[in-house]
């Protein structure tokens, strides 16, 4: 293969690998939206919290970030539960619906800045044994860290799939996302499903955070970056659609990766926003064609 | 004398489903036309098509001779066609009078004039003692009165009423029928969608029966209700 093709394939592969993790943040956000109609503007900050947790577990106990998923996911589930119970359910007044965005935005600011105050704005990085390892596969260079993260992401997604398809609770969540009233009439405790879903979304953010730790820089305000990515994934795939989030995650990963190599201008991020607005305005069902808007 | 409203070949497809297919009928000025049919027959879709909330896939709608197809709802309202909604939609945080004023502003730019008109319609709809309450606090029956007063304030010559009686108890239904007769008495033409049979039978001059998106029968209430096809549509045929 000539060099151009190598570069293209490598870029494509690393895009898919990181896209796998993006799928997780997309699924978390979309599930919260689908079930509760809440646009969770603090999603990225939840990921950030998980990253810090993972970082400290690594620093103090040497636990590999990829393994720390088993800690961060439940921990973030609890945090999500608390945020939901303690704050989101308290929304009232004539402007409640409009204000949910403002509220979650505010919660995100609180999360990011609490971390900032506690741990300073210093950039942190996790260096594991495989952080810099590069494998050569069929002549292509592939980052080992990304492969491991991707593998874990697949594992989590597979578990999620089983959960949604095979367990009662999972099916209840899907039912509520599809038709809240019908689910309630069928005997689903819709409020309880809502609370659990928020926790679930947060748990997925927690898992994603752990998986991001070996491959991303860590600083208190990194959350806003992830929130933007999460929204882009969800809009690409259609709000409320889980398969859409998987599609959107992979597409975003690939597009970002290709963009970084072939379109390196400062306007790159602006194009992402433009695409976001245009898709939302003209194809709210997302490129995958499903939505619950 | 030309008809006030002429509908021909009205068709609406949603994806592959024909919600309304080749529906046609006309309405003369001063008539009360009842639009009936089993659930899912397409009655609300027809209303949506007439008032600009949906665009027809095919067919024509002419009001006083000019086409309504492609016009936005607010333009159709200004031409004199008003509607109420099947699920009542009060403007919650505004008072009763303020709700009706929104309608009145359609024909009267000046606030004082709009308020005067609104107060007249509020009185007409017998909501006078609740005039300054927030619309969100009204009972269902009163919300329906509000819906009506609001539509009347826009000064329509044709009023489309979508299941006004739904959810009302017998005495509220009686009062509603009385009110509709008084509306008609003002010279307003009515198309009424209704499920309460005795109401629609006594109120309407003519009936249009829809079933599965198609126009099954049009005519005098007694004749239409005796039509075997109509009976079949409502009760189903004895065997397949």
């Amino acid at each position, binding site marked *: 293969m000539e060099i151009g093709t190598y570069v293209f394939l490598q870029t494509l592969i690393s895009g898919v690998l990181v896209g796998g993790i993006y799928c997780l943040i997309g699924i978390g956000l979309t599930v919260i939206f689908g079930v509760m109609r809440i646009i969770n503007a603090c999603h990225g900050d939840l990921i950030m919290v998980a990253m810090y947790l993972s970082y400290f577990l690594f620093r103090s106990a040497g636990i590999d970030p990829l393994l720390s998923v088993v800690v961060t996911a439940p921990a973030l589930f609890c945090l999500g539960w608390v945020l939901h119970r303690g704050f989101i359910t308290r929304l009232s007044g004539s402007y409640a619906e409009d204000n949910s*965005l403002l509220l979650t935005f505010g919660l995100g600011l609180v999360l990011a800045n609490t971390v900032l105050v506690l741990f300073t704005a210093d950039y942190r990085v996790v260096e594991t044994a495989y952080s810099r390892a590069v494998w050569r596969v069929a002549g292509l260079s592939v980052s080992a860290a990304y492969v491991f993260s991707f593998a874990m992401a697949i594992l989590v997604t597979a578990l999620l799939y089983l959960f949604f398809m095979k367990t009662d609770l999972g099916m209840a969540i899907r039912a509520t996302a599809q038709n809240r009233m019908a689910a309630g009439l069928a005997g689903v405790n819709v409020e309880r499903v809502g609370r659990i879903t928020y926790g679930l979304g947060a748990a997925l953010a927690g898992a994603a955070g752990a998986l991001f730790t070996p491959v991303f820089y860590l600083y208190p305000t990194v959350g806003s970056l992830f929130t933007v990515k999460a929204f882009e994934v969800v809009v690409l795939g259609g709000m409320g659609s889980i398969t859409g989030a998987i599609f959107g995650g992979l597409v975003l990963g690939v597009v970002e990766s290709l963009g970084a190599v072939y379109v390196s201008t400062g306007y790159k991020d602006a194009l992402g926003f433009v695409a976001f607005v245009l898709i939302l305005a003209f194809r709210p069902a997302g490129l995958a064609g499903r939505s619950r808007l | 004398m030309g008809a006030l409203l002429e509908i021909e070949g009205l068709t609406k497809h949603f994806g592959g489903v024909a919600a309304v297919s080749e529906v046609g009928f006309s309405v003369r000025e001063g008539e009360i036309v009842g639009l009936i049919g089993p659930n899912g027959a397409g009655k609300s879709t027809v209303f949506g098509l007439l008032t600009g909330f949906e665009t027809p896939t095919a067919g024509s709608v002419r009001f006083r001779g000019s086409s309504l197809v492609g016009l936005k709802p607010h333009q159709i309202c200004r031409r004199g066609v008003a509607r109420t909604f099947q699920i009542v939609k009060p403007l919650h945080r505004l008072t009763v009078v303020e709700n009706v004023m929104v309608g009145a502003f359609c024909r009267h730019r000046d606030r004082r004039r709009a308020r005067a008109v609104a107060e007249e319609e509020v009185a007409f709809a017998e909501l006078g003692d609740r005039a300054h309450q927030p619309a969100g606090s009204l009972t269902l029956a009163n919300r329906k009165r509000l819906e009506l007063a609001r539509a009347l304030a826009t000064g329509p010559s044709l009023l489309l009423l979508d299941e006004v009686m739904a959810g009302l108890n017998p005495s509220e239904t009686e009062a509603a029928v009385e009110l509709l007769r008084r509306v008609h008495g003002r010279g307003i033409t009515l198309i009424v969608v209704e499920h309460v049979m005795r109401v629609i039978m006594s109120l309407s001059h003519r009936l249009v029966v829809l079933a599965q998106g198609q126009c099954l029968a049009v005519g005098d209430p007694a004749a239409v209700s005796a039509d075997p096809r109509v009976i079949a549509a409502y009760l189903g045929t004895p065997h397949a």
Partner: protein
Amino acid sequence: MVIPARTAALVAACGVAALFPLIFRHDGYVLNLATLILIYGITGSSWNLLGGYAGQPSFGHAAFFGVGAYTFAVLFPSGGAWTVPGFAVGGLAAALVALPIGAVIFRLRGPYFALSMLAFAEILRLVAQNWTSVTKGATGFMLTPTVEGKVAHYYLILGVLAVLLGITAAMASARPGFYFLAIREDQDVAEALGVNTVGYKMLALAISGLFTGVAGAIYANYFAYIEPNVVFSTVEISLATYLIVVLGGMSTLFGPLVGSAVLTIMGELFRVFAGTGNVLLYGILIVLVVLFMPDGVVGMLRRLGPRRRRVGAA
């Protein structure tokens, strides 16, 4: 003659506002704060027209603020006689930008509209950051300050605010105000009642964008230095504006000004006493306001005060 308490309070407040700079003319710090309150009062009141009255809250008004600021800076960096007309030009530029934005995203409702506005603000921020030949990019743009003296500035800005509040009051009590509220409550009903919802939303957006742009131009002239991350800032401008109106009272005439006063003063206190934690306190404030004061200060006062009917204030 009995003067109702409300009118008396209003007159007193106007008196204070008018005489304020004369009393404090030697205290630059206080005057500065007061001027900031007025500038944010303008942005808040403009936002309120679209977000409060017409019910389309936007999370991206920084787009208009920044456009106004940069238009003024690029076209009139040394101000002079062009300062005041320059504000108008800044506002017009923002209004012109508002129209195509509205055309694209008014089909979206509620939070989707809010988010798309945010995306627009970010797009414009990135444009400002990268179009270095015109905007000087991230290094920022320095202007030559004109309008000598803080007192003169204060009165100028007070004038603009008064005009905006006048326009808002006039619209609110006439047909446009009712139509905005109808759109806020239920757009389908509004259409069915003869309201050209698209037209009126665009009107609200255009006026809102215009005055926010004027505020941006004023800001650029007053501080004589702007950069993309400040004037197009989601947190400092867009979020602050939204919060000001919620805090003061959505779709009330004076709510945004009250909110601006409270927020500016609190922001100052946070900055002085909390150092790095000031944004944290800010975030906590947002959460508290949204949960416990969703109707804002003026909204709460209305509930406590006499039951005087006001349009749409149920």
